C-alpha cells in the first residue's frame, strides 16, 4: 500500500498531486491523480471520484477539465484514477484504442487473459477508496462519483450497483447502454465472454431497472454535436426511458453545439461539482 508521489503542484490554494502505487486488484503499478483542496489541510473532506474515458490517463482530467477551482471552493477532494491496468504484457492489450490499455470499461474481467489484471470495477469501488481513506484526509462516508464517456458509464454502474455508497452521481456524455452499442459489445464480449447475463451487471440502463436503494439524483450533460451520440455509442434515450419508467430522477441536459471533447467537460464541470457538493456537503 505504499504510495509514491509522482508530482505535486499547488493549485487553487490546494495541491494537485499524482501518486503511484502497486495495485493488488490490478497486479500492476497504477497512477492516480488527487486534488487536495485547502480545506483538507485542517479537516477531512468528501471525495469525488472521476472516471475518465477511452484512451485517457489520470492526466487528461486534471489538465483539461478545470475542476480544481470549484473543488477548492466546495472543499472536495477529487480522485482521478487511470482508465485501465498498464504494462501487464497481455497479448492484444495495445492493439486497439477501445479495448485493452486505456479501455478497462470499469468491469471485472472474467475471461482469459484479462481476468488477472482487468479488474477496474473492484479497483475503483474498493481498493482505491481504501487507499485514499488510509493516506489522505478523506471522509470515507462521503463519496460521490462522476465521469466522462466510458467513465460516465463507469460512474453510473458504480452508483447503481452500490446503493448508498455514493452520495451523488453525474456524468458527461456517458455510454448509457453499452450492451446496445459497438464499444460496449466489443469490450463486454472481450472481458466478460458471450454470456449476456454477465453483461447486464455492467450496463447502466439495465441496472436502472433493478435499482433499489436511496434516492439518486443523476445529472447528465450531453453535447448535441457529439459524433459518438449520433453514432449510437452513447444511447442516453434508453437510460432516460428506463429512469422515467423506474422514477429515478435524472436531469439530462442536451447542450447545443457541444461535442465529446474535454472542452465540453470544461464548460459544465462547475455545475457537476456543485451537484456533488450539494450532496457531499449536506
Amino acid at each position: 500500500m505504499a504510495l509514491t508521489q509522482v508530482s505535486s503542484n499547488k493549485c487553487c490554494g490546494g495541491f494537485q498531486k499524482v501518486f503511484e502505487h502497486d495495485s493488488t486488484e490490478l497486479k500492476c503499478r497504477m497512477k492516480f491523480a488527487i486534488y487536495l483542496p485547502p480545506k483538507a489541510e485542517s479537516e477531512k473532506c468528501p471525495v469525488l471520484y472521476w472516471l475518465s474515458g477511452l484512451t485517457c490517463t489520470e492526466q487528461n482530467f486534471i489538465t483539461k477539465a478545470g475542476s480544481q477551482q470549484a473543488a477548492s471552493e466546495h472543499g472536495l477532494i477529487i480522485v482521478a484514477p487511470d482508465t485501465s491496468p498498464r504494462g501487464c504484457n497481455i497479448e492484444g492489450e495495445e492493439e486497439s484504442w477501445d479495448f485493452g490499455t486505456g479501455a478497462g470499461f470499469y468491469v471485472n474481467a472474467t475471461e482469459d487473459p484479462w481476468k488477472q489484471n482487468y479488474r477496474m470495477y473492484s479497483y475503483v469501488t474498493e481498493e482505491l477508496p481504501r487507499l485514499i481513506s488510509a493516506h489522505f484526509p478523506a471522509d470515507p462516508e462521503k463519496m460521490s462519483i462522476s465521469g466522462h464517456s466510458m467513465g460516465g458509464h463507469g460512474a453510473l454502474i458504480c452508483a447503481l450497483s452500490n446503493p448508498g455508497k455514493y452520495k451523488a452521481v453525474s456524468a458527461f456524455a456517458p455510454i448509457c447502454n453499452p450492451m446496445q452499442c459497438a464499444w460496449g459489445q466489443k469490450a463486454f464480449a472481450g472481458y466478460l465472454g458471450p454470456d449476456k447475463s454477465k453483461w447486464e451487471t455492467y450496463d447502466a440502463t439495465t441496472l436502472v431497472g433493478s435499482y433499489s436503494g436511496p434516492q439518486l439524483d443523476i445529472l447528465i450533460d450531453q453535447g448535441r454535436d457529439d459524433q459518438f451520440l449520433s453514432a449510437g455509442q452513447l444511447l442516453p434515450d434508453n437510460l432516460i426511458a428506463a429512469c422515467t419508467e423506474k422514477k429515478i430522477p435524472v436531469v439530462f441536459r442536451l447542450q447545443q453545439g457541444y461535442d465529446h471533447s474535454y472542452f465540453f467537460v470544461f464548460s459544465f464541470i462547475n455545475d457537476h461539482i456543485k451537484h456533488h457538493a450539494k450532496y457531499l456537503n449536506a
Partner: protein
Amino acid sequence: MQEQDLYNAEEGSAEDQRGVWGGSADGEPDRELRVPGKAERHGRQSRTKIAEEKRLKEKKRVTPPPSTFQRFSVDTNESLHFEPYIPSDEDEPRSPSFRGATVFSDEVFEEEGETEEGPPTEDAGGSRVDLKEGLGGHSERDPPDVFCMDCKVPTQASQKLFGPHKDHRVIQISRAADEVKEDLQKGMHKLEEQIGLMENFASHLEEIFITVEENFGRQEQNLEQHYNDVLQALSQRNEQGAAQLQDDKKLKLEALYTQLLECGKTLDVSKELIEEAQQIYRDEDKTAFLQAVTPALRRIEELSQDESEIKLSSSMDFENTPVDFSDVKQMMDSVNILPAPSAPVINPQVPNSASSTSARVCWSLFSNDTVDFYDLHYHPVLDDATFTGLQAPDALEIRVKETYCTVTELLPNAQYEFWVTATNTTGVSPASEKAVYMTVPSPPIIKPRECASCPEAALIRWESGNANPVDSYTMELSEIGAEGGANAVTESIVAVPTCECLVQLQPGRHYSICVRAVNIGGPSERSEPIIIQTTGTSFHLLEDTAHPCLSISSDGLTMFYTDEDLPLSGMVFSDNTFARCVAVLGELIPVRGKHYWEVEVEDRTEFRIGVAYEDTQRNGFLGGNSTSWCMRHVITPSRHKYEFLHNGWTPEIRITVHPKRVGVLLDYDAGKLSFFNAHLAQHLYTFQCRFLHHVHPCFALDNPGALALHNSIAAPAYTMFN
C-alpha cells in the same frame, strides 16, 4: 419645594414667609406648620439615642468613654439630612424605665463618674443623659438578655419564668429592637402622610385666600364702577334737561317777537287806509268819489278779514316732557348684584384628548367673572360638498359646572364645532369663539390578502377604516417571542402617508404588526394585528391580472382553469388581464435579495411557472418574450416535456421524474432564477439573467387543472448549490 419652605420657616427665617400668611404671621396655621419640623428634630435625636444605647451595650467595655462620645456626635452630624421622623409614643415612656432599671446597680454610678470626667461638649446636656440611659440599661451582674414587650422593659430570661413579666410577651432584645423599630417606622410613615395632607391643605387654603382676596377686590371695583356710572348718567341727564329748556325758551320767544313785528305792520297799514278813506270821504265830486271808493272799500274789507292773526301763533305753556330714568334706575338696582359673565375662552384641542367617539373640551373664564354653570354647545362640522342645501343640524348642549367636559357619542374622524356660554344668577354670557375639535379615526383594517413578506421585509397594506381622509398612519411592530407572547412594541413607524408601508425585518422571526390611523385629535385604536413570519417569502395572486378563465381560491393561493367553455362574450378583459395565456401574476414584495416559493402541480397539468416583469405583455405567452422566464410542462403523446422558456427559446432538458412540487428560487443579487423538484431536492434548471426591475411570480395553465401556491417556506439548503 413646599417641604423646603416649611423647614426654612422652622429655621427661623420668618421674613421669607409667603404673602398668604403675611397678614397673620403669628396665626395658628403657621404655628401648626412648624410643628412637624420641630418634631422631626426631636425625633431624630430620639432615634439616635436608641441606636447609641445599643452600640454602647456592645462596645462599652473596650471603648473608652471619650471615643464613644465622639462616635455619638459624629452620628448625630451624619443624620442631619432630612428624613421626616416622628417621635412615637413608645419613646417617652421607655426612657424612664431604662433609668429605673439602673437604680439598682452600684457599678453604674462608678461608670457614670468616669463618663463625666470625659471632655465636655456643647451638646453635653442631652447626650450625657443619653449616655446614662444607655449605661443604665446595662448591668454587669445580670445583663438583661430579653425584652418584655408589654412593659417595654429589658429584663432577664429568668424573670419571664418567675418575675413580674411572668405572663408577658418576652422576646430577645435584638428582635425587640427590630420590632420596636418597625413600629416606629410605621408611626413615622403615618405622620409623614399627615404632613403631606397638611401641606396640601395649606396650599389649598393659600389658593382660597388669594381667590377670596381677589374676589373682594373685584367687588369693590364693581361697586365703584357702578356708582360712577350712575352719577355720570345722572349728570348727563341734568345737562340734557337744561339744554332742552334753553332751546324751548329760545324758540318760544323768537316766535312771539315775530308775531309782535307782524302786528305792528298790520297796524301801520290799517292806519294808512283810514287816512286814505277819510280823504276820499271828503271828496266833493260825487262821480270821482264813487270812482275812488270802490278799491278803497275792497282793501278795507280785505284788511278786516285778517282778524285771524290776532291770536297767539303758538302755545306759551311750559311743556313738562317726562324724563326717562328707567336705565338709571336699572343701574341703581344692579349696583349690588353680580355682573353677568363675559364670554368664556374656549381652548383649542389638545393632542390625545379625544377618542374615536369622544372629545375632552376645555375652556376658561375671565378671572373676574362668577359663573354658576356653563353650557357647552356643539354640532358636527359638515362637509359643504356633501350637505349643500341641507339644514345644519341642531346644536347639542351639555350643562356642566367645570371648565371642561368630555363629550361622548361622537362620530369617529369627524370635526365638531364647540362653543360655550357661562351663566350666573344675573344672566348668560355671550358665546365663546367657536373651536373645532376632531375625534380620532376608527382603527384601520389590515388587508392580509394584499400584504407580502420575505425574510428581510414586509409590505403591509390596509384600508383606512374611515370615510374621511386621515392625516397619517402609524405602524407598530412587536416581535413574538418563542414562548408565544407578543413583546412590547419594538418599533413604530410614524407619519405613513398612504395605506401601505414597507418595513425592514429580521429573518426567522415572528412579528405582530398593527396600524393606527392618526389625525389632529390623535391616534386611533390599534387595528387587528397581522402576524408576519419572516421564515420565507409570502405573497398572493393579483386577481386583477388573471385571465377570465382562471379562477382563484378565496385564500388567494390556488388557481383553477376549469373545463367549462366560457363564451368569449362572457369574458371580461381589462388592460391588466392576461388575454391569451391563461395566466396570473403574484405580487412579490419589492425587495431584492432571495425569494423562494413552491407550486404544487398535478401530473396531467400543463403549466408555466416563473417570473415576469409587471408590465409583461398581456397578449403574449409566458416565456415567449423577453419580459418573462418560466418552466413549462407539456404533455406529448410519448412523454412529459419540460421547457425552460425565455424569449421563446428553451434548452433541451430531459427530466425523468415529474415534479409534483416545483420550487422556484429567485436570486436578484446572483441574477439567477432556479427551478427544483422540491420533493426530491433535485435541481432542474437555472436561468442566468440580470433582473433590471422587480419581477413578479407568474403562473399559467395551458390546459384545465390547478396550481397551488405554497408560501412562507424558507429556501432549502440544497437550493444554494446551483
